[in-house]
């Protein structure tokens, strides 16, 4: 069963795996801790699915905090504990920005939640601009030809 689960449930850590130091506050999950709150589980999910590197862990924390404070989290909270428990069977406690997630062993309803969370995260301009290393929305570049540069 363990091997089947492993095959179906491929989750590779990124090269940027690292420890998020404020474990309680940012939601780092211990498999031995069955009392993880829905909020902390969701934060952990955001770090796993989101694009942030460990060097930008404060940015990730700040984003997750606002995500939870402003009602965006509501559809995900009821299932977040179950989902993170499924995922973290294959993840270290410190994992962020994984390369891929296998859906096979995740119950159908939780799969939908995970996909919706992914779609929503990458629908935020702030997240997409982080991915493309673009300066924040609203920050003037002082260069009207900024958009003519050859992309890196």
């Amino acid at each position, binding site marked *: 069963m363990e091997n089947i689960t492993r095959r*179906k449930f*491929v989750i590779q850590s*990124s090269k940027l795996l690292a420890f998020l130091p404020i474990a309680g506050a940012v939601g780092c999950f211990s498999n031995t801790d069955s009392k993880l709150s829905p909020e902390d589980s969701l934060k952990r999910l955001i770090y796993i*699915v989101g*694009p942030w590197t460990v060097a930008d862990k404060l940015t990730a924390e700040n*984003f997750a905090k*606002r*995500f939870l404070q*402003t009602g*965006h989290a509501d559809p995900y909270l009821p299932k977040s504990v179950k989902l993170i428990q499924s995922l973290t069977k294959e993840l270290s406690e410190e994992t962020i*920005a*994984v*390369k*891929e*997630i*296998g*859906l*096979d062993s995740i119950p159908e309803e939780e799969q939908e939640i*995970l*996909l919706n969370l*992914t*779609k*929503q*995260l*990458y*629908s*935020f*301009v*702030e*997240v*997409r*601009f982080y*991915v*493309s290393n*673009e300066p*924040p*929305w*609203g*920050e*003037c*570049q*002082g*260069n*009207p*030809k*900024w*958009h*003519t*540069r*050859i*992309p*890196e």
Partner: protein
Amino acid sequence: MNEEIKADYCIVGGGIAGILLASKLVATGKKILILDQGPRFTEKDRADFLSKSKEDLNDFADYNDNVDSGVVTPLSSAKSGDLVVEWTNYRLFGIGGTALHFEGLMMRPIEEDMRVKTNYGYSRDWPISYSELEPWLLEAEYEIGVSGNDDNPYASSKSGPYPMPGHPFSYFDSEILAPALKKTGITGHSCPRAVNSVPYRGRSACQACRACKFCPTGARYSPDRVHVPILEKHDNVKILENISVRKLETNSKGDKINAAHAIRLQDKSEVVIVAKNFIVAMGGVETPRMLLLSANNGIHKHGLGNMGGQLGVGFNDHDNLYVTFDAARPVGRRLGYETMVSDHFRKHINRIEQPTFTMYASPAMDWFPIGNEATTWSRHGNIVSLEDLRDSLPNMATLSIMTESEGRGILELDIENLDSYGDPIAKVTMKLTEWDRKAYSKLVELAPELAEAMSAKKVSEVSPPGFGLGYHPSGATAMAKNPDEGVCDENLKVFGVENLYLVSNSVFPHMGSNPPTLTIAALALRLAAHLEAAK
């Protein structure tokens, strides 16, 4: 006793039409009163909106978010059924109106847009020709400050250049889009924008902040930043915010407006405005609603100017469709708006068979639907490759089209839904005809061709036909040669009322596939000249 205010010109609505009209009338020295049911936003408001949108992770934050919708923004309703689609409204209330948050697209109509009934057999002709409107379009481009190059091979004649050069083409425009368009026989050209490409009349050039809705620099035109401050320096102009005009009262014969009845939102006090001329400039929905709410017992018993049964008829909007491409290589950045567009399908299409459309494409990094597309495309069987997702985002581009529609919508009063004052809200029943839907079919055909031409790896499905957010409501108080064809005459005077004028996109007999703002501005300037001449 109610407060009474007297004026020579009472302009109801402080959007781009009303403000530009006033900016021309001010030189007459006549007393001008401008009323708007929204507030006068400050620069601090703009900064706070931008800051709050980040704090709340709300990419759609907007000016009217905190306003009581029952008081300031009565909603439109829609039926469902065959060929009838949902319709919403992206308008704003406040000094500056919808131009507070508009994208600044400043395309002109083309000659053919104004003769569609005669030439192609659909919708309605304008009672004036393109050549009559053209000088006012040019003047509007200078008043507003439009950047653009005279490189559009599909445009109708222009009597002068744009006041500013166009924004430089982006990397994507030059290296990916233009070559792909060329392979399919289409020419890309500059996009006329109310965004400064160079400093213009005291405002800076665009600084690429990409938050155009709140434009921190003022490079994008907004009436409250450009023309309102000028008006505020004149003693003969009074601008009242947060005041809602509820009804226009006619005299006993019904051929003249005696007064406008209004309510101040803050203390609910009633105000009566007595003026020599009234100009309703309340946009595509509230203008026809005001005429319907002002029905009297005489010839206007079905609404002002509605002797021919044309009030509310021909309501129209644009259908906006889009596709997303994964271009398989980085597409670069954008200023916050498209810098290359194409009017090819405004000119080279059989209008008897299908609608025209304008075409826009650009890198999609600030286009929210790509989160959905990229996630969907990054799923391989039961594996979601987040690495693929992150890698693909910088390669994404979007192409959208703004399509002409036949204009078969109806606007009427919804007696089952009342606003906070007990008045019926506007009900819009929006029809998307089979002819309208052919623009969708055309894009379905075109998208894979363009994808191949730009060597894209993937292309999404075309978004379904519909009227989306309702950007450009128009047509429900059309200008016409007689009351059997419209609500106001070619000088925008309401039929059967000697001192009532309209100026908004509601007076368009037909709207081509170009955004309406420049045409609205041109009509406002033309009306100002008419009123001055008529004094």
